[in-house]
């Protein structure tokens, strides 16, 4: 567990110094939202209930990019192999990388939520606690699967194009639950049961897939 | 392998040719709970169903036919390479 924390700190330190992944990911996320705005806003009126979908699509697209480049850096510096050679428990390596990605995506979401709320006239911040819970659960699920696939793809050919090919079909429940949960928060009358259902689904997804990722990371990285 | 391929290909083609006239010769006519069988279609049920039906069956036959062809072609290629390589190895081990 301490090792995971150390890995997280290492990634954050490198990131804070160079800012490459953070700034480019954030920019991409904002650009994404802008593209949606230009595509979907007609005569100054955004589509009804579009905000939830747009928020999540931006998060997933930006996340895909961030995942690819987070591991690209590892590949170039061969740090991943070094980490795996170290007498460290594999799960810790995975968890450290996962936490790094989650922190990065959380930073993006902090920026995106007000932006989407503003541009699409959606009252996203009406129920901040529920929103935070859904975003946290969904981002963790997405990042869990993404971190595993990105780590496994590090030595593969065509890795840039393969990551979205693998990631998006598997994270379909995340986007469905995330968007539907967020959209439920945008309704004038909050129906807590619906939000709770989607949140529960996301948490179950996280539990199952973080566990599966830990096991698979172990099985795949030993060769 | 070629014998098998020809056999299966012929069977598929025969199925395709046999099914089209059999289906075309058929006399033409929101949430279902169970299927209710009847022997005669009411007169208002009409032809537009037949093209869909024929398209569906043809598609199925064509997909399986093409897949079998693709698979047997890949198999013959690899088999040929295996035989060739096996022969070369035998020669080099003899010499």
């Amino acid at each position: 567990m301490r090792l995971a924390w150390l890995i997280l700190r290492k990634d954050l330190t490198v990131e804070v110094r160079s800012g490459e992944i953070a700034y480019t990911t954030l920019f991409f996320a904002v650009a994404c939202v802008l593209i949606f705005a230009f595509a979907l806003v007609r005569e100054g009126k955004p589509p009804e209930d579009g905000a939830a979908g747009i928020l999540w699509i931006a998060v997933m697209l930006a996340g895909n990019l961030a995942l690819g480049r987070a591991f690209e850096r590892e590949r170039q510096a061969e740090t991943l192999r070094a980490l795996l050679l170290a007498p460290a428990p594999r799960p810790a390596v995975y968890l450290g990388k996962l936490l790094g990605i989650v922190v990065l995506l959380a930073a993006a979401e902090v920026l995106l939520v007000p932006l989407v709320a503003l541009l699409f006239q959606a009252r996203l911040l009406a129920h901040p606690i529920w929103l935070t819970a859904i975003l946290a659960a969904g981002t963790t699920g997405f990042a869990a699967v993404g971190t595993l696939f990105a780590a496994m793809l590090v030595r593969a050919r065509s890795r840039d194009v393969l990551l979205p090919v693998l990631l998006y079909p598997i994270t379909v429940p995340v986007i469905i639950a995330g968007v539907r949960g967020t959209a439920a928060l945008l309704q004038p009358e909050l129906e807590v049961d619906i939000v709770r259902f989607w949140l529960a689904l996301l948490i179950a997804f996280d539990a199952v897939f973080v566990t599966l990722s830990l096991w698979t990371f172990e099985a795949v990285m030993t060769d | 392998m070629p014998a098998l391929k020809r056999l299966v290909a012929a069977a598929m083609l025969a199925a395709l040719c046999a099914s089209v006239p059999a289906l075309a010769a058929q006399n033409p006519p929101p949430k279902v709970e169970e299927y209710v069988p009847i022997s005669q279609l009411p007169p208002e049920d009409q032809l537009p169903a037949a093209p869909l039906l024929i398209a569906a069956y043809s598609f199925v036959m064509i997909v399986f036919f093409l897949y079998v062809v693709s698979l047997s072609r890949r198999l013959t290629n690899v088999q040929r390479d295996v035989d060739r390589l096996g022969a070369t190895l035998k020669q080099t081990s003899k010499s």
Partner: protein
Amino acid sequence: MPKWFFRAAIVCGVMFVASPFVIASADYESTMGLVQKIFYYHMPSAWMFLTSGIVCGVASVRFLMTGDPRHDRLAWAAAEMAVVFGVVTLVTGPLWARKSWGTFWIWDARTTSSLVQWMVAWAYLILRRYGGPGSEKLAAGLALFGTANTAFIYVSVNYWRTIHPPTSVVPKLPFTMGFPLWFCVASFALLFVLLLRMRVRLEEQRATLDSLYLSMDDAR
């Protein structure tokens, strides 16, 4: 190829040739009429699609646990089966739906889940083809995730109303419709086994070829 293969292939071919006649002898369904006959091909191929997914998932887990390449070969073959039978299911379904539901595609739980799982199978094949060396374990991981995801996909997509006929239809089928259905199920199941065996054979031969190349390098 083993001896049973050729005999089984003949039986399978005969069954498929016979199937349109067997189906034609079935009664019409009263509300859906002629187009419902697509059911006799759509449903068995859907079942084989499901079976392929399960075989791929189980084989992948065993490969991850043991590293035995035989499981990997079976998993790859099963994934290809899933794509083929999936395509058949996903095309015959909308053709049927166009007439009976009025539209080609409806975002209900079963159709959408099938589409998503079919894409996972397709992604598996893309990965095997373009992933380069070492993609076997990665693909096994993908298959494992795809299988584990089934329940989640189904539940999450179930938010939308489903207008699929409930599966309870099958046991209640009268004999004139039940017999053609089970006949077609047998045909498709036999076809599935034959194609799977053939596809696994392809992988076995590829592995033989690889080892031959290696022996050649050693012999030099």
